[in-house]
């Protein structure tokens, strides 16, 4: 099993993405608590795709580095892109009147978090979590 791709085109896909994430995390041996953290982080970034970019995809894959194993979650869209990345990663900042906790929150839930975005081109968020 190399990777699982979940197309995000409507809000119902958010649930599919996080269920797929939880399932892969379970297969990889993550604790139920970590499975929930991963599923929640996926929910946040998948929702951002729906709200800001209308469509995109979530790609889930296994991570292996010597003895260590983990999960990689990549959220990709060709949406409007993020103008000010620093602001976007700040708690409480929202351009759509929401809580503004999605991106900084997802970052707190995962071990690694890379935000790659360009206005007019889209956004790619790469998150990793290691199995303890």
């Amino acid at each position, binding site marked *: 099993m190399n990777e699982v791709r979940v197309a995000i085109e409507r809000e119902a896909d958010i*649930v599919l993405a996080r269920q797929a994430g*939880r399932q892969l995390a379970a297969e990889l041996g993550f604790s139920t608590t970590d499975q*929930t953290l991963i599923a*929640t982080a996926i929910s*946040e970034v998948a929702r951002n795709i729906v709200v800001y970019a209308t469509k995109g995809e979530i790609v889930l894959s296994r991570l292996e580095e010597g003895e260590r194993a983990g999960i990689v979650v990549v959220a990709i869209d060709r949406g409007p892109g993020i103008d000010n990345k620093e602001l976007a990663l700040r708690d409480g900042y929202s351009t759509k009147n929401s*809580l503004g*906790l999605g991106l900084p*929150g997802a970052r707190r839930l995962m071990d690694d978090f890379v935000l790659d975005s360009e206005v007019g081109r889209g956004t790619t968020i790469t998150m990793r979590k290691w199995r303890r």
Partner: protein
Amino acid sequence: MPVPILKQGDTLIASVVSALTDDDLVQLRDDLAQRIGTVRAKSVVIDVTALDVLDSFATRTLRGIAYTARLRGAETCVVGIQPEVAFAMVQLGLTMEGVSTALDLEAGLALLATKHREKK
């Protein structure tokens, strides 16, 4: 899939199912706002035991449901947040400020009964 809402005296009890979509939550908000009026409910319990994820949207909507209910004269209590879900919410920075929470249905009903007694 709509969330079933049961009536017990002047309390409405909604038990959400695990694969809850955003639309289901919004539908629940609208249904509860209506039902509070038709049955003159004083209390609302939302049981989220089956929810394996409570993200920022769900939290925001639950809070919205509670505030809406309060405007219509009913107190809300969210019950059944699972340990891992609670932990994820704390990590995410989510609070249920302004919304009562309790361990389970029994505790929630007891809490709401106390609140109503204090009001009198």
